[in-house]
């Protein structure tokens, strides 16, 4: 028997088993869900050993005489003192170390991530400040010329930026002349946010549909296609 066949059948049964959830909550879909989670966890342990610990910890310690690596798991095991009231302080040592490292990483990453975002928000709004070639990459359909596209892009960007920021500005009541302007701007910002959330929802639909199509492709072309030549090859 072709060694591929049992794999195909197992995958097909698992796929159909998980999709039984569409009918209603049932033990079959739960079973396959648990199998999937269990397999993923087991695979993580295996891969962590074969591709990380064995090469970087076990082999140097056992075969290259770097005996000091024995202390690495001892430090890791200190986490388990969280279950002891008397020795909890030992768990706190490694937790503090972990949180400190995470805080350090976050601090280190903050400026490289956010500073360019702030500087990129300063876009030219006057036509004479925009080089005519600036928007060539932005208009694959060539509806507008590059220059017009950049002007439109930058103005739309600036208006949305200010109105959305005003939506999150809660320090001034929407009363009086300034308050009323702020209120209108805030309302526009809310609409822009809704449009953005709509675009995100559309993308979510696309993502979920892709996953479904991927499974259907497998069932049709890989599983059934293995037996029925009419379905042909995948893709």
């Amino acid at each position, binding site marked *: 028997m072709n060694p591929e066949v049992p794999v195909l059948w197992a995958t097909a049964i698992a796929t159909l088993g998980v999709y039984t959830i*569409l*009918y*209603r909550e049932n033990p079959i879909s739960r079973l396959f869900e648990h199998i*999937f989670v269990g397999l*993923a966890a087991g*695979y*993580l342990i295996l*891969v*962590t050993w*074969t*591709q*990380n610990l064995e*090469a*970087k910890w076990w082999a140097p310690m056992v075969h290259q005489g770097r005996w000091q690596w024995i202390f690495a798991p001892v430090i890791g095991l200190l986490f388990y003192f969280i279950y002891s009231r008397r020795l909890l302080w030992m768990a706190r040592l490694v937790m503090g170390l972990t949180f400190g490292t995470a805080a350090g*990483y976050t601090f*280190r*990453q*903050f*400026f*490289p*991530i956010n500073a*360019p*975002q702030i*500087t*990129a928000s300063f876009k030219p709004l006057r036509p004479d400040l925009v080089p005519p070639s600036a928007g060539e*990459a*932005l*208009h*694959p*359909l060539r509806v507008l010329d590059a220059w017009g596209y950049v002007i439109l892009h930058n103005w739309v960007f600036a208006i949305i930026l200010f109105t959305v920021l005003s939506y999150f500005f809660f320090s001034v009541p929407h009363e009086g002349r300034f308050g009323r302007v702020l209120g209108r701007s805030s309302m526009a910002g809310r609409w822009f946010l809704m449009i*953005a959330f709509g*675009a*995100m929802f559309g*993308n*979510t*639909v*696309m*993502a*979920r*549909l*892709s*996953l*479904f*199509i*991927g*499974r*259907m*492709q497998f069932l*049709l*072309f890989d599983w059934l296609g293995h037996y029925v030549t009419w*379905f042909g090859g*995948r*893709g």
Partner: protein
Amino acid sequence: MAQAPATGSWDYLQRMPRYVIYLLLAGVVLWQLLAPIRFPIVPSSTTRDVYKAIRAAPENKLIIISVDWDASTQAETGPQTAAVIRACFESGKRFALMNWTAPMGAKLANDIARPIAEQYHAEYGRDWCNWGFKSGGANVLMAMVKNIPETMGNDVRGKRVTSLPMMKGVRDIKDIGLVVEVTGLAGVTETWIGLVQGPYQTPLTAAYTAVMAPGYYAYTDSGQLKGMLVGVKGAAEMEVLERKPGLGSAIMSAQSWGHILILALIILGNTGYLLARGRARRERA
């Protein structure tokens, strides 16, 4: 979940049973997979930028394809990975697959890379390699920028990465010409930007699942990302640029018709709501 029975035709449009929607969607997808009616695929500017970034990567430097995805997003990230790998082979760029968040990614991407490498007569270790999954999260990137061979240790085949011919002369992040991040996980790109792209100016480009892509347009606008692929649509667009229709293009017709069905159902549901409301008003009057 029990649903209230539909009482009239307008009500039915609003309360269409879920199984009818599922069956309609499955029918449309099946129809399009078996007899596709294709729409033209126009590559977006973000996809073009990814393609350009791969072609512009220096020949003497390595491209890293960070495959931080697993089976749950394979339908999108799989075709994206395939399209990126093909672009690398087409332009004669050497690349290394790596993974530091989702352990299955290295194996799944390996299964994608092998047949494509055979098509291009590319040799493992000379034209491409797979560093495998490295645990440690952000520490992996921090260590990698200073010492790639020491951080990566062994590849997926259990060989020291230093024994691979293509790794000769590859020491640190300065020997990397481009990083392509393929992921369905939020936060991964930020770590690349914060620890690699920002401090070392290593060009970074990405491929995302469609659901997370909208949040990353700001990074393409600021130039931190040199383009990005959006879901399976991005993969299909790359295939158009490569002139090699593959998995992405095959999915797109089913995708487009599925969207048309969903739009039609939204319009029908809203029409039902408006008409039912009008009828209720007339009855009250």
